[in-house]
């Protein structure tokens, strides 16, 4: 009698397992009622539709990218040139890979420690009210559109970076990485700092949720063994939350890799690579597409699509790598406990 009211049962258990008799027959018929069939069709159709759309997009992008790359007279992966409408067309993504990776790495290097610190402070140190207030402000930070970050970056951050750049040049200039020739600070370092601010909320929010999940027992056990607060965090909170921190960082990295308008407004993109992070050199994939798309010829558009595909592949690789790390760490973390 109850069987018919449980929608899971008929689907999970095949018909033959149903006990014979009136009730069983009714149950079997229930599985093929019009409503069920329609719902099955709709959900299966949605699943297939998503795959079909993805396949169509991938096919279109790959086709257009192939059109461009097959005409490319320069090496697509190593050339420092972007002139797809030239005769012959010459373009390569080396500079874009460099700029995208470097600016994202700077952003991660700044944002991850700060975000984890904020999350720990909110969950383990701050009084409840203060923690709530900080969390609220962080949420607000996440709601600011990237073009506003771009405006702020170009009109406020850039003119105020001179001091930091001068300091870096004076004390760390000998490394070559922090050499500054005195130009306007519209470089990868400035972009990295801006990106760090932009991805801070995502990483903080996700880490905070993960740290909240740490079993009370773990912490109390550590405390009972005489651990200090820092030791509790080091021994129970961080190990438990490690995979969560990695996932959070990947979400942040995804945004940093794909950020478009803010980068386009703050960076002085050039098509060469500069060892110094303080002088202009490099561009990013998304910024390059945004900058070049408006006036692009057919060939130029295909070349931009090709560069977009590469960004897509990089994102896939990064995400895959992160998943592998998480999967491997799972055994050691408290997640399975």
């Amino acid at each position: 009698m109850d069987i018919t009211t449980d929608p899971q049962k008929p689907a999970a258990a095949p018909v033959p397992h149903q006990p014979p008799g009136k009730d069983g027959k009714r149950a079997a018929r229930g599985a093929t009622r019009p409503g069920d069939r329609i719902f099955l069709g709709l959900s299966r159709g949605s699943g297939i539709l998503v795959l079909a759309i993805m396949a169509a997009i991938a096919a279109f992008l790959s086709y257009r990218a192939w059109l461009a790359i097959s005409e490319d007279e320069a090496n697509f992966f190593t050339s420092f040139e972007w002139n797809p409408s030239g005769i012959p067309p010459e373009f390569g993504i080396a500079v874009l890979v460099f700029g995208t990776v470097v600016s994202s790495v700077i952003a991660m290097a700044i944002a991850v420690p700060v975000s984890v610190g904020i999350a720990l402070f909110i969950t383990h140190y701050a009084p409840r009210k203060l923690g709530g207030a900080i969390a609220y402000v962080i949420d607000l930070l996440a709601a600011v559109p990237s073009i506003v970050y771009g405006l702020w970056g170009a009109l406020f951050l850039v003119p105020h970076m001179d001091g930091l750049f001068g300091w870096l040049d004076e004390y760390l200039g000998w490394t070559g990485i922090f050499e500054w020739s005195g130009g306007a600070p519209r470089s990868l370092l400035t972009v990295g700092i801006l990106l760090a601010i932009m991805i801070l909320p995502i990483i903080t929010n996700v880490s905070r949720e993960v740290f909240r999940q740490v079993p009370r027992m773990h912490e109390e056990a550590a405390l009972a063994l005489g651990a200090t607060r820092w030791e509790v965090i080091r021994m129970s909170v961080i190990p438990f939350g490690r995979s969560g921190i990695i996932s959070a960082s990947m979400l942040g990295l995804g945004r940093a890799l794909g950020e478009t308008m803010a980068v386009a407004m703050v960076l002085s993109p050039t098509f060469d690579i500069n060892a110094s992070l303080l002088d202009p050199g490099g561009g990013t994939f998304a910024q390059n597409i945004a900058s070049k798309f408006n006036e692009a010829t057919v060939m130029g558009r295909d070349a931009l699509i090709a560069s977009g595909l590469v960004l897509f592949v990089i994102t896939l690789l990064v995400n895959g790598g992160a998943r592998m790390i998480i999967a491997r760490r799972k055994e050691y973390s408290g997640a399975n406990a």
Partner: protein
Amino acid sequence: MKLQRMNRRALALGALAVSGALALTACGSDDTGGNSSGGDASAAADSNIKCDDAKGQLQASGSSAQKNAIDAWVKQYVAACNGVQINYNPTGSGAGITAFTQGQTAFAGSDSALKPDEIEASKKVCKDGQAIDLPMVGGPIAVGFNVPGVDTLALDAPTLAKIFDSQITNWNDEAIAKLNPDAKLPDLKIQAFHRSDESGTTDNFTKYLKDAAPKDWKYEPGKSWEAKGGQSAQGSSGLAGQVKQTPGAISYFELSYAKDGIKTVDIKTQAAEPVKATVDNATAAIGAAKVVGTGKDLALELDYTPAADGAYPIVLVTYEIVCDKGNKAETLPATKSFLNYIASEDGQGLLKDAGYAPMPTEIITKVRETISGLS
């Protein structure tokens, strides 16, 4: 209730006034002069704009460089011809030409003349004809600079080329001092800004450098910046903003962006005196241009080394692109009537207030003849 409604009306009026003011400032007209003459034009326009049997929607897209000019024209034209609606989408010249050759738009705006393969592609949409260039809007490309303590600066083409190629890196360089004996040039790093996006302004500016200083500018002219080094920013407004906030900066943009105290370089040509970047001086230089288009095509070849006094050499001309034959029947009357208006004396007269240069008489006469023959 009544009070509320009044308030709402007042608000709407206020919004109208604000948007009107915005539109005016966007045109770059400096003061009420532009405003009042615009008003006069609209009063006079009723008699001068010939609507003929134009009606319907006119879709167009292309160059963003002529956006403000088109906006000013559309405002006047639509006021006179009620039946017509004109949407000009500033998607950029490349996208505008593509949209036109795919038959999506009635005309395109472009800041460079059609290339042979684009003309070939246009034959699909122009039955028995092809796409042609009609030069309609001119404009000086100003070189703005921000050097504390220097108000006027004269530079010639080779010096400009070296500055933008990072060969001259300090404002107290001898080459600059020689051209400006009276200026107190500071010991300050030059920050040459170029466009990070592709742009017809870059195309025309580099064409000038290549033509006027072939020894010092080794790069091929084009919409994307080829030279190494220097800084960059997006859009003309981005460049103007950087010049304003960065001491030592120099950059190029359409004259209408050189406001709010941005100073512009006087260009030293073969003429006796360095030439200021003004609308009149640009028109003088465009007068030296030759028509190089074949048939009805009126593509221009600009003279970047004019010798005449008061001819400003760094100019850009934007074209309207239509079919000479085989325009779509439903949009032809409106297209023809609108083009007739913008090529008329009234239409060209509006340009100056918007920071653009009208076409010289000789060229615009040919344009008018060509428009009357469109079919």
